[in-house]
């Protein structure tokens, strides 16, 4: 895909060949220009913003517009730098933040595990279905994802609240006499996360299980292994990369989730996404919110690396 320099697409740019040649001199002729468009966009609107967050996490909150003191400024021709690690120290000192991180990881972890328990059999079932049914079943898994996330979480309020659908049904059948308290509990948050992210669990598991060579299972059965043994010693280890990918795709967004704990959780459901939101919108403490975000990124580094590894392992296998 290489073009001779003087016939490159840049020579057709408005302004004629002269501008084209100048752009090429700058490494922006044709090919370079095409590479530059997405690279510059993402640098400006994805990568640089993180540096800004990191910078502001080191500044001091102030009643000003914007509400923080500059980290560096020129005073009489001298660059004065005021790095303030106080925000990070504050996160360590105030038990609220530490418990919010732990709580988020716990809630995300438990929800991921429940999603795996539900998602694995579903993915297995779809992968073992006749080929002409698979696409339909997969589409049924993905369809809810296309309707509004917010409204699907909202639907669970109607199910879980005191005079909601589940309580009305259980009281009608006489199983319980007074409504169970389900809304505004951690239980509701688990349900909300499992429900919202189940497709993310099923899709990578399916992609992995559908490639599984049936002859291994037959070999195992021929050698006298019972189905349960075959499952535990053959199927499960072979689908490990699918399991890791699915779990991380649920776990990572769940840790930073805001909408689900805000709508379904109680006032004591402390998740870090919600803490960040409140620091930003209610307390207007931008430096603390930035520090919370930076620490959250560090918490997610290991899960993100696991995900990348699992995904590249899966690509290598196909």
């Amino acid at each position, binding site marked *: 895909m290489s073009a001779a320099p003087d016939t490159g697409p840049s020579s057709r740019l408005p302004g004629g060949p002269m501008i084209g040649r100048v752009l090429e001199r700058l490494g922006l002729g044709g090919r370079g220009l095409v590479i530059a468009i997405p690279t510059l966009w*993402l640098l400006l609107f994805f990568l640089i*913003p993180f540096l800004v967050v990191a910078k502001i996490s080191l500044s001091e909150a102030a009643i000003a517009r914007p509400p923080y003191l500059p980290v560096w400024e020129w005073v009489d021709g001298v660059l004065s730098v005021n790095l303030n690690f106080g925000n990070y120290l504050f996160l360590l000192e105030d038990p609220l933040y530490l418990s919010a991180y732990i709580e988020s990881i716990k809630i995300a972890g438990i929800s991921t595990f429940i999603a795996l328990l539900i998602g694995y059999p579903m993915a297995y079932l779809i992968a*073992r279905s006749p080929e002409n049914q698979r696409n339909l079943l997969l589409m*049924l898994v993905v369809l809810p994802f296309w309707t509004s996330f917010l*409204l699907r979480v909202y639907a669970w309020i*109607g199910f879980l609240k005191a*005079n909601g659908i589940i309580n009305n049904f259980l009281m009608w059948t006489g199983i319980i006499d007074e409504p169970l308290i389900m809304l505004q509990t951690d239980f509701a948050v688990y349900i909300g996360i499992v429900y919202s992210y189940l497709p993310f669990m099923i899709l990578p598991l399916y992609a992995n299980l559908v490639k599984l060579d049936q002859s291994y299972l037959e070999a195992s059965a021929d050698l006298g292994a019972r189905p349960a043994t075959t499952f535990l010693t053959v199927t499960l280890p072979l689908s490990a990369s699918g399991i890791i990918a699915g779990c991380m795709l649920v776990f990572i*967004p769940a840790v*930073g989730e805001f909408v689900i704990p805000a709508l379904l959780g109680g006032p004591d459901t402390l998740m870090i*996404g919600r803490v960040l939101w409140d620091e930003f919108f209610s307390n207007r403490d931008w430096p603390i919110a930035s520090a919370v975000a930076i620490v959250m990124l560090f918490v997610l580094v290991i899960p993100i690396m696991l995900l990348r590894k699992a995904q590249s392992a899966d690509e290598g296998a196909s």
Partner: protein
Amino acid sequence: MQRRSKFLKITGVLGFVFLYAPILSLVIFSFNESKLVTVWGGFSTKWYGELLRDPQILEAAWVSAKIAFVSASLAVTIGTVASFVLIRFAKFRTKSLLSMMITAPLVMPEVIIGLSLLLLFVAMQGLIGWPGNRGIMTIIIAHSTFGAAYAAVVIQSRLVDMDMSIEEAAQDLGAKPVRVFFDVTLPVIAPALVSAWLLAFTLSLDDLVVASFVSGPGASTLPMVIFSKVRLGVSPDVNALATVIIGLVSLGIIVSALQMSRSKRRL
């Protein structure tokens, strides 16, 4: 063996009930006469009338539709160029950087994306005076950025599958790279571009968190209005709105499925 497949079928059915029951309940109770959303009080379509008379919701829906349209188009443009460059171009200096930046938004919590973009906009305003006030423009930039990441996933997988020999044939016949791209590559990957556009459109229409961070006082998107309503408890007109959205989405999916099967037949 028989018992195991029975177990699988039951979990499968229960799983799909779990996925669809909440959506179904939204639709059913949107036709409920009673204001108590989950207690049936007879059939009525009055909440749909209420919806049409709510200027706040209509206004927000219009704002959201405009934002979603523009940002989906931008996202597909950026996503297509990025995918093409990553799949078709030989090694270049910033390749791994670009590849990292186009996939990272997929695994980034929304609160972090929202906060980081807002802080960027504020810093830029201080430095160069742009963007003057935050609103539709800043939301579009935010949505096209994470939309491009999703679009790139869809487009890249299509480009990988695409038969490169037609591109090579066009080149051998003397077409310049730009011409090959517009006359050969684009038409072949067009169905993927449509899926990518729809995905980016839906994600934009759906986003609450990022929009709340980067928006200014002027612009409220539909999810922002719904969220402030829903925070106060269930309300039947939200059910009616949900039903309208579910209806539109189903319609879109049926149309695109029909189109997909038609284009498959043509090939």
